């Protein structure tokens, strides 16, 4: 059972784990929670996305994750809008019968989200705002999953 949600509201990790645990022979659930870092200067972070493309792209990579690893279910929730330091940005959760598969699929989905999902971050600091630049290291995170 796969879930994709783009929302302004926060998410409930307990509830998402509980949902995944009902989807088959689940012995392991790995979650990744990404949050706005508490940089001294940052007042807030505003997330924009490309509605439609985001969901399509995440779904495509979930399908890929399911074909690579025998996972029972996966959940991706990504927040948009204005977020304060410490607030959650993203949740990736993967359930599997065994831990290695759950870890691998969760890390694959996060690497993908960082490198390919159409989200952009506007940092507001000291009354100025600045679009966060993509870091090449995130492309590198993705490249290790390519088979060629």
């Amino acid at each position, binding site marked *: 059972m796969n879930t994709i949600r783009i929302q302004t509201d926060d998410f409930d990790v307990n509830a998402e784990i509980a949902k995944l645990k009902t989807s088959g022979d689940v012995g392991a659930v790995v979650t990744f929670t*990404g949050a706005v870092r508490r940089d001294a200067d940052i007042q807030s972070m505003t*997330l*924009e*996305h*490309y509605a*439609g*493309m985001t969901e*399509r*792209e995440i779904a495509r990579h979930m399908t890929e994750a399911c074909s690579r690893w025998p996972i029972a279910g996966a959940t991706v929730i*990504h927040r948009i809008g204005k977020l304060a330091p410490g607030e959650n*940005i*993203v949740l990736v959760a993967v359930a599997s019968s065994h831990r290695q598969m759950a870890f691998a699929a969760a890390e694959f989905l*996060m690497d993908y*989200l*960082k*490198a*390919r*999902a*159409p*989200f*952009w*971050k*506007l940092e507001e600091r000291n009354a100025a705002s600045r*679009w*966060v*630049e*993509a*870091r090449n290291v*995130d492309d590198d995170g993705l490249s290790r999953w390519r088979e060629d």
Partner: protein
Amino acid sequence: MTILYFAWVRQQLGRGEETIDLPAGVKTIGDLANHLRQRGGAFGEAFSDRKRIRAAVNQEHVPWDAAVHAEDEVAFFPPVTGG
């Protein structure tokens, strides 16, 4: 065709979306970027350095030589920074 702009591209151009007829001679997404750059002003600046911009056609990431057609949904945006 529908053209969408995101993040600083949207801000710099002062618009998030526009609908245009496929311009004469535009066969690829790179041709379309050149066409938009030739409008000058904010468009001239935004499309002056292609390394700073990425493109999608019908909601899929594409390289600059990808074909575009009259009914496509096209988007220009900076490299993504999700997660």
